[in-house]
């Protein structure tokens, strides 16, 4: 499985949002998108999942132009956990998670037991089985995030996009989510692309990091290569200290307090 972005440009009302983005993603890797707010992270995610059409350039999924793939088929290959979740309050958790099976349910059918089994597995993975009968209005933010992830996982897509999944979570839930993503990568060979703010966690969990500055691809590569003083100062405008975590050989990024 290969997902390619070729020469992607995006402008909106004469404002250049993305220029000349070229990226390649393959199975079984976690890629972190980092950059300041407004550097284009969400736009890239929206372009990949088809919500946003680029001004020029193409996206190829296994060498097929993504525009030629129907909406339904696209949702079998690419699943998304959006940044803003506005779930209607009077549905139950199980109702929402089950919606993830929609791409596999034919027009005149409602779903099969198999779909229910898959839903169960997904809910077990995200630890929300006990919540299945609860109404959306009755669960917390962290649980909501997990529901959202479960819904995306239910699509069983080889590509999983997450737009700032950890921004609104407490530390415990951040780790839970990231551990889950790691498991998905290792056990199920999923290609995970997520945008993050915490550079330390990014270095711990991501195989590759893509750094964006003002809509331009500033740098991409392994965490050790990308997370350097110069790069971080260049892209974020702050000075940092970088040390090595001896336990798992990842980087710890510490901002310098003025």
């Amino acid at each position, binding site marked *: 499985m290969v997902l390619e972005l070729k020469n992607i440009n995006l402008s909106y009302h004469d404002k250049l949002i993305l220029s000349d983005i070229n990226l390649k993603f393959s199975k079984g890797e976690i890629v972190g998108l980092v950059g300041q707010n407004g550097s284009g992270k969400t736009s890239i995610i929206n372009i990949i999942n088809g919500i946003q059409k680029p001004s020029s350039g193409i996206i190829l999924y296994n060498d097929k132009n993504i525009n030629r793939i129907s909406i339904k088929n696209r949702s079998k290959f690419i699943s998304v956990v959006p940044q803003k979740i506005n779930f209607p309050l*009077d549905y139950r958790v199980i109702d929402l998670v089950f*919606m993830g099976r929609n791409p596999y349910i034919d027009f005149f059918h409602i779903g099969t037991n198999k779909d229910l089994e898959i839903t169960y597995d997904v809910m077990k993975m995200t630890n929300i089985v006990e919540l299945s009968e609860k109404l959306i209005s009755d669960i917390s933010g962290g649980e909501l995030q997990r529901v959202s992830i479960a819904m995306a996982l239910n*699509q069983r897509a080889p590509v999983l996009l997450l737009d700032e999944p950890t921004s609104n979570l407490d530390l415990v839930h951040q780790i839970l989510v990231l551990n889950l993503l790691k498991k998905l990568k290792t056990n199920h060979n999923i290609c995970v692309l997520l945008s993050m703010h915490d550079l330390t966690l990014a270095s711990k969990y991501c195989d590759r990091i893509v750094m964006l500055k003002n809509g331009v691809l500033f740098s991409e590569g392994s965490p050790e290569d990308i997370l350097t003083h110069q790069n971080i100062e260049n892209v974020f405008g702050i000075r940092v200290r970088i040390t090595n975590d001896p336990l798992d050989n990842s980087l710890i990024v510490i901002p310098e307090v003025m």
Partner: protein
Amino acid sequence: MININKKIFIQSNKNYLYDKFKVYWIIFLCLLLLIISGISVCIGSVNIPVLDLINIIYDKILGNINPNSNFDVIIFKIRIPRVLLAGVVGFALGMSGSTYQGLFRNNLADPYLIGVASGAALGATIIIVSPIPLYFGVINLLPLGAFLGSILCVMLAYLISYQSDSLTLTTLLLAGIAISSVCGAITALLMLSSDPNIRPVLSWLFGSFTSARMEHVLLVLIYIIPSFLFILSFSKFINILQLGEDHAILLGVNVEYVKKGLIIAASLATAGAVSFCGLIGFVGLIAPHMVRLIWGTDYRYLIPLSSIVGAILLILADLVARTILGASELPVGLVTAFCGGPFFLFILRYQRKYRFK
């Protein structure tokens, strides 16, 4: 251990796939509808004793000629078409009310939102006020005019909000409001400048089933049955649409098709219903609310339940409209507005308690 949990999970959630209880409720409501229709046929401004009624129906089924032909006419040519038309129109209003509420993701949406009502009113007023005769051969031009007016207005709103291959719902709403306003003004102008004809126009505007006939029922059914089947088959997508258009696309729903299809189906059904009886308000708003309070927001069940509840409500309203004054009649729309308003307020107050419990 895990497997047992899974089995329990699947068993208990089979409800999601196919909620037995809700289906039972649908069947129950259908029976209730039949019973209420039956009772409605028995009551009217002319007092027909129940025994006579049963005899007359019995004779009709057997094909006997009934000596009491007046009652025969009243039951078969006036009451039965009337109850049927009220039921069918109520059905259409409940259906399109709940569909619009799902589509626009707003519980205040009603079937007349995008210009259906004002267009129909304008069409009907033009026919009544102008020298065009009411009948062209066998065709009754009044419902035809109303229908054309209605569809033209919706099409106009649709075209305005159809930009670069996608239908923007907020634009549709606003265009509908603007068009309604203009149509309303023209209708009022026509009414002002032709005083002697005001009464029939006002009567039509408030909606009434006075001149209901079997042909009307059949014509309305022609619009409603395909619309209903269409909307029902899309109802699971309406559920997913509640997450937002973008999210629905991400889950594999072709949102453009769904939006366009639902708007056309619901508007056609409403236009068809409204053309024959005028504007009857509140039913399309109240029926979905009642259903939502009791059975929740799963649109696969909300839509059929709202339709049946709408039919029941309108049959009851029509019963009141034609019996409360004795020999003369009230327009049905007056009854629905008069009772619907306070009822709606009651629901709103109760709803608040429900929400935050």
